[in-house]
């Protein structure tokens, strides 16, 4: 992750503030920074979303392509994640520098999404032969702390925005199959993102934990717990990140906080996505200029 240089005095200031439930920018320990979400920013994709969380900027594009189903799951489609840490985010990501972080985030995304997150059977076109493969590509434009949370919000918003064209399979006399796209460009299937989880990263600073840490706060914390919750409060993934260790009691506390914060995050994200959708195709797109 991008590194920031902090003096000992600044670290002590942050740690003492967190003890009193007061962070440097005035938030409480359980508060997120202001999140800006916008969908449908890239026109060549089946779905896209851009999320700005403080100084963190994430762009996700989802492309739906026809592929062959996996051998063990012949009647389901699947998702493929790829994370690219662009050199714009921080100079450390130049060349192959960002590859390690990119694979770590991609592996975490694979863990978070299990079989009940997205209805994979709806992605099947014909069993054993054709299915929809959703390539979810995440682009890190700017790194300002709390990458996992913003990426999971962006992925959820992009999947909500994804429109997969409806196809029919036609069989020839010889038995060869042909895939036909429907004529109407607006005839598409939408995915239900009800069970798509969002991650909440809780950083342990001193004796308390904070949600949505900035780069400076991450520098003061030695260990964090990453919890991924769905909107119903079901936990799909738990992971300890960082080079420190955690007390078992704090893990239980952090899980409870993660679930509570996660539920609030899901309900506000859902409200905003529905509101954006109701504005219709004539809404003002902010894109990259705002």
């Amino acid at each position, binding site marked *: *992750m*991008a*590194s*920031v*240089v*902090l003096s000992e005095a600044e*670290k002590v200031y942050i740690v003492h503030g967190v003890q009193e439930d007061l962070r440097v920018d005035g938030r409480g320990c359980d508060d997120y920074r202001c999140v800006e979400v916008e969908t449908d920013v890239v026109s060549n994709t089946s779905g896209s979303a851009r999320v700005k969380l403080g100084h963190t900027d994430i762009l996700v594009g989802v492309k739906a392509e026809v592929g062959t189903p996996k*051998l*063990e799951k012949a009647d389901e489609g699947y998702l493929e994640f790829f994370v690219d*840490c662009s050199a714009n985010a*921080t100079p*450390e*990501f130049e060349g192959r*520098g*960002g590859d*390690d*972080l990119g*694979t*770590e985030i*991609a*592996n975490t995304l694979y*863990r*978070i999404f*299990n*079989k*009940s997150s997205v209805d994979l059977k709806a992605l099947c076109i014909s069993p054993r032969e054709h299915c929809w493969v959703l390539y979810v590509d995440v682009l890190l434009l700017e790194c300002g702390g709390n990458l996992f949370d913003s990426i999971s919000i962006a992925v959820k918003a992009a999947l909500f925005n994804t429109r997969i064209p409806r196809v029919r399979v036609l069989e020839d006399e010889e038995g060869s199959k042909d895939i036909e796209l429907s004529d109407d460009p607006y005839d598409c299937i939408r995915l239900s993102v009800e069970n798509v989880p969002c991650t909440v990263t809780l950083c342990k600073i001193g004796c308390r934990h904070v949600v949505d840490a900035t*780069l*400076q706060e*991450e*520098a*003061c914390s030695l*260990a964090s*717990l990453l919890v991924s919750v769905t909107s119903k*409060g*079901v*936990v*799909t*993934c*738990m*992971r*300890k*990140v*960082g*080079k*420190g*260790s*955690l*007390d*078992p009691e704090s*893990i*239980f506390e952090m*899980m*409870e906080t*993660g*679930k509570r914060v996660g539920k609030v995050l899901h309900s506000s994200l859902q409200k905003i996505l529905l509101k954006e959708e109701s504005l219709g195709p004539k809404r003002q797109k902010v894109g990259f200029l705002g």
Partner: protein
Amino acid sequence: MPGDHRRIRGPEESQPPQLYATEEEEGPADRDPTRLRPVFARAGLLSQAKGSAYLEAGGTKVLCAVSGPRQAEGSDRGSGPAGAGGEAPAALRGRLLCEFRRAPFSGRRRRAPQGGCEERELALALQEALEPAVRLGRYPRAQLEVSALLLEDGGSALAAALTAASLALADAGVEMYDLVVGCGLSRAPGPAPAWLLDPTRLEEERAAAGLTVALMPVLNQVAGLLGSGEGGPTESWAEAVRLGLEGCQRIYPVLQQCLVRAARQRAAAAPP
């Protein structure tokens, strides 16, 4: 590749016959959810490594070797992208490089020797779990290399690798705050089943959720945690973590005995 006779690659599209075979047995036998398989641990086996350990638990066999400390590559460049954020003496702190490899014959299907992203994820999990225990501040500008080789996967492979790695580090004489003991758990699919401690390979394959916990027993600090799947609400995961921590405490005496025995052997073998 002309003349490459060592790696025999099969045809491009080939599947093992097990894929088309019928299921072997319906459901594993009922078992005590808190049973731990007997653990066999030996340290100090490899002559070329600074420290080594072999751990066997049920069908899972892991061999781990530690080498170093040697000069870190790129130590003058400073911390890399995943380095500590903001610590000025980050370049002075030692580094732990972990590698996790599966033997191609370790699972039911043959895996290519170059594992790919799953092995990198497990190697990162190993590193994150071992770092709290090792006193890296005592090895400035140096790196310690830990490599775990999974010979046979009989369930809870990551947990066994963690335990073997910390035994190997202790055998190498690396300064540590405490040993790291790993324990695996899994939960069968169904309405509200219990979490099973130390699952076998069959239980893991059929599981809806899996969890690996790493504990430092004397300090009672959780060094590593990695879990995913449909585990249910947070209370269920909390119960799983508690069960895992208890399991780790129960394995600890075996590891103590193993290290004492290795130390005695080394003392006996050393010239007076």
